[in-house]
C-alpha cells in the first residue's frame, strides 16, 4: 500500500493498465506532454511514448469520435475531457454513437471508451468549471456512469472502467483530487495522507461497477449520495450526532438498488443528495425508485438535497453548494416524527 491522492491513484490506475495492455491509449487536451491540467496523466507519455499518451486538439467532439473509431478497432481509449463543463460539444458522439454502437450493430462493433472528466464545484471555478452534469449521462442507454469519492475507489473503479466491455463516463470530483472535504471552506485543506482511503495498492486491483459502498452503517436514517457530498454527509451526521447509514453510490448507472433498498427498508428515512441542480437530477431518479421499493417502510417523505436550479455561481459558491448547514436541516427534518 502507498499513500496516494486521487490524482496519484488515477494516474496509478492508468499506469497499471498501460503496462498490462498495449491497447490502452490515453489522450486529451493537455494530457500528453504536460500531463493534464490537473496532472492526472503526468509521466505517462515519458514512460509509454508519444503514441500511448498524447495531446489532442481542442475539439471534444473529435476526441470522442476518435475514441469511438479506435475502440471499434479494438483499442482501449481513455480520453480526458478537461472539465466536464466542456463535454457538451462531444455529447452527440456519446449519445448517438458511443452508447449505441453495440446495439445498432447487434454486437458487430462495440465502443468501450473510458471518458475521464473532472466535475463538481467547491474550487472557485465559476459557472464553466464547476458543473456536475452526471444526470445527462444517466439518460443514455448504453453508457455506464461512475463517480468515485476517494483515492482507493478511484483507482479500483478506473481500472474496472478500462477493463469494461462497455463505455464508461468517469466523473472525478475535482474538489476531492487533493484531499477529502467536509463542506467547510473555512478549514485548511486536508490531504488524503491521513485518510484510510488514501491508502492505495500500487498494484492492479479493481472494484465492481454497479456496487455501492456503505461508508457508515447506522439505523436512524439513510443518506444516499456520491462524489464530494459523501464526505459532507459524514461530517453532517457526526455534527448532528446521529446514527446515519451513509451510502456512497460510486456507480450511477447501473446504480445499486439492492444496497439502497435494504438500507432504507431498515431505517425508514432517507435523504438523497447531489451537488447538481435540482430539477431532473439523479436524486430525482433515486427518490422515485426508492419510493417504489420502500414505500411501506418510509416514515417520512424522501428528502431531496441538491444544488439550486441556477448556473454554478462564482461569488456565491458556498450558498449554492449543499454544505453542512443544509445537510443538518435535511437530517433534522427527516428525523422529525
Amino acid at each position, binding site marked *: 500500500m502507498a499513500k496516494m491522492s486521487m490524482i496519484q491513484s488515477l494516474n496509478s490506475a492508468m499506469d497499471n493498465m498501460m503496462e498490462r495492455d498495449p491497447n490502452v*491509449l490515453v489522450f486529451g487536451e493537455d494530457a500528453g506532454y504536460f500531463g493534464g491540467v490537473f496532472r492526472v496523466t503526468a509521466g505517462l507519455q515519458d514512460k509509454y511514448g508519444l*503514441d500511448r499518451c498524447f495531446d489532442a*486538439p481542442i*475539439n471534444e*467532439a*473529435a476526441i470522442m*469520435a*476518435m*475514441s*469511438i*473509431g*479506435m475502440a*471499434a*478497432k*479494438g*483499442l482501449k*481509449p481513455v480520453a480526458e475531457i478537461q472539465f466536464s463543463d466542456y463535454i457538451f*460539444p462531444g455529447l*452527440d*458522439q456519446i449519445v*448517438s*454513437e458511443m452508447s449505441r*454502437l*453495440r*446495439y*445498432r*450493430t*447487434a*454486437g*458487430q*462493433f*462495440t465502443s468501450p471508451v473510458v471518458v475521464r472528466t473532472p466535475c463538481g464545484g467547491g474550487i472557485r471555478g465559476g459557472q464553466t468549471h464547476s458543473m456536475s452534469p452526471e444526470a445527462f449521462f444517466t439518460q443514455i*442507454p*448504453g453508457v*455506464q456512469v461512475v463517480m468515485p469519492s476517494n483515492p482507493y475507489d478511484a483507482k479500483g473503479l478506473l481500472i474496472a472502467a478500462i477493463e469494461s*466491455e*462497455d463505455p464508461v463516463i468517469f466523473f472525478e470530483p475535482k474538489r476531492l483530487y487533493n484531499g477529502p472535504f467536509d463542506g467547510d471552506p473555512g478549514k485548511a485543506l486536508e490531504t488524503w495522507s491521513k485518510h484510510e482511503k488514501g491508502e492505495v495498492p500500487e498494484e492492479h486491483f479493481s472494484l465492481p461497477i*454497479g456496487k455501492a459502498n456503505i461508508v457508515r452503517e447506522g439505523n436512524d436514517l439513510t443518506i444516499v449520495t456520491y462524489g464530494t457530498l459523501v464526505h459532507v454527509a459524514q461530517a453532517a451526521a457526526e455534527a448532528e450526532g446521529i446514527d446515519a447509514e451513509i451510502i456512497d453510490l460510486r456507480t450511477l448507472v*447501473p446504480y445499486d*438498488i*439492492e444496497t439502497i433498498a435494504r438500507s432504507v427498508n431498515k431505517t425508514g428515512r432517507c435523504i438523497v443528495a447531489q451537488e447538481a441542480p435540482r430539477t431532473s437530477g439523479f436524486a430525482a431518479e433515486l427518490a422515485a425508485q426508492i419510493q417504489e421499493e420502500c414505500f411501506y417502510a418510509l416514515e417520512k417523505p424522501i428528502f431531496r438535497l441538491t444544488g439550486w436550479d441556477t448556473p454554478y455561481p462564482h461569488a456565491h459558491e458556498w450558498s449554492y453548494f449543499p454544505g453542512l448547514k443544509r445537510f443538518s436541516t435535511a437530517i433534522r427534518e427527516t428525523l422529525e416524527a
Partner: protein
Amino acid sequence: MSQTTPRFHVPAPSLRPGDKPDFSHLVIPPAGEAKRPDPSVEGMKTQDLALGLVRVLDHNHQAVGEWDPKLDAGVLREGLRHMLMTRAYDDRMQKLQRQGKMSFYMKSTGEEAVAVAAAMALENSDMIFPSYRQQGILFARGRDVVEMMCHCISNSRDNLKGRQLPVHYTWAEGNFFSISGNLTTQFPQAVGYAMAAQYKGEKQVTASWIGDGSTAEGDFHGALVLASTYKAPVILNVVNNQWAISTFQGVAVGEGATFAMKGIGYGLASLRIDGNDFLAVYAATQWAAQRARDGHGATVIESYTYRAGPHSTSDDPSGYRPKGEEEEWPLGDPVERLKNHLINLGEWDEERHTELEAELKTLVIAAYKEAESHGTLHDGPLSPVESMFEDVYAEQDWRLRRQRQDLGV
C-alpha cells in the same frame, strides 16, 4: 415569394421548379487535363487539383490523361456489373417501398460510380465508414443480396435485429462499419479507426463518405483536424451530389469555393473529381490509398456528381428543383459512360448490356422472394421482442432485466 431585397445574404440556386434545367454556368474542364502528382506530394501542393476537376473519360468515351488507371476490360465489366446491380436493386427496393413492403428507402441513382469504383480501387481488407448512399460498396464487396434485403425489411434474419432503419447496413465481416443516420459522425470516427490500424501495425486504409451538405457539421472540421494533426491513413470523401434533401450545395460550400478546397486549409491533399466517371473515381481512390498506405497521410476527395433521384422515399424533388435536371447533368450518367467506354473499346455491346440488365433484374426479384420467406416488417416473423433489451450492454443489468419482465417477455 416576397420581392424585397434580403437584408443579409441567403444563397439560392438560380433555377427552381418550372424553370428549364440549365447547367451552362458550370465550368467543366476537359478530360485528361489534370496533372497527376506522385501520391507522396505535400498536401498543400494539390491546390490546383482541389480547384479543378480530375476527369478521365472524355466525350468520345475514351480514357485520356495522366489519371487514366489503365484497367483491364475485365475490371471495367465487373465495375459495370456492380453499378447495374446497384441500380437494379435500388429500383426494385424503391418500388417495394411504394408497395408498403418497407418503411423507408434511399436510392443512390446517379452516384453508383462514387461507391463502386472506390470500393474496387481499395482492398477488401480496407475499412469503410459509409454514409447512407454507398450501397454500391456492398455489391462490389460481394455482400449477399438476400441479407441486405432482410435488413431492409427488418425480418427475423435482419443482421441488425430490426434496430435500424432500412439501408442503414452494417457488415463487420466485409469491413463495412455501421451507418449512423446522424450526419458526419462517422467522419472523425474513421480517422480514429485509421490511427488504430496504424497503431496495430496494419497496412489497412480507412475510407469514409459524407455528402456536400454534411460538410457544414462540426464533425467535418473535427475529422480534417484529426486527419491532418495525426497524418492518418484515411480517405475522406465528400460526395457533392448538389442536393442536401431540398437544400442546394451553395448553402454549405461558400461562394466560389469547392468542397475539396476546404481540405487545403488543413494542409491535406485534396482532389476534386468527376464522380460520374468510373475511371476518375477509381484513379483518385487508388492514388489516395497509396498515399495513405505509404505513410503520407490523408486525402480529401470531392466527388462532383448529381443526385438523380429523391433524397429518400419521403422526399419529392419536384418541390424544389427543375424537372428533368438529372437528364441535363453535364457530366452524364455513370453507368452510360462506362458502358459506352467499354463499347468503344470493343469489349461490350448493347445486346450484352440488355441481357445483363435483365439478368440482374431477375436476380433481384428472386432475392426479394427469398428475403420475404424470412418474414416482413408487417407480418413477421421479426427478431424476438426480448432481443430489444439485448446489446444495450454486454450484460443486462437489473434495470433491463426488470423492464423486460415488465413487458412480459
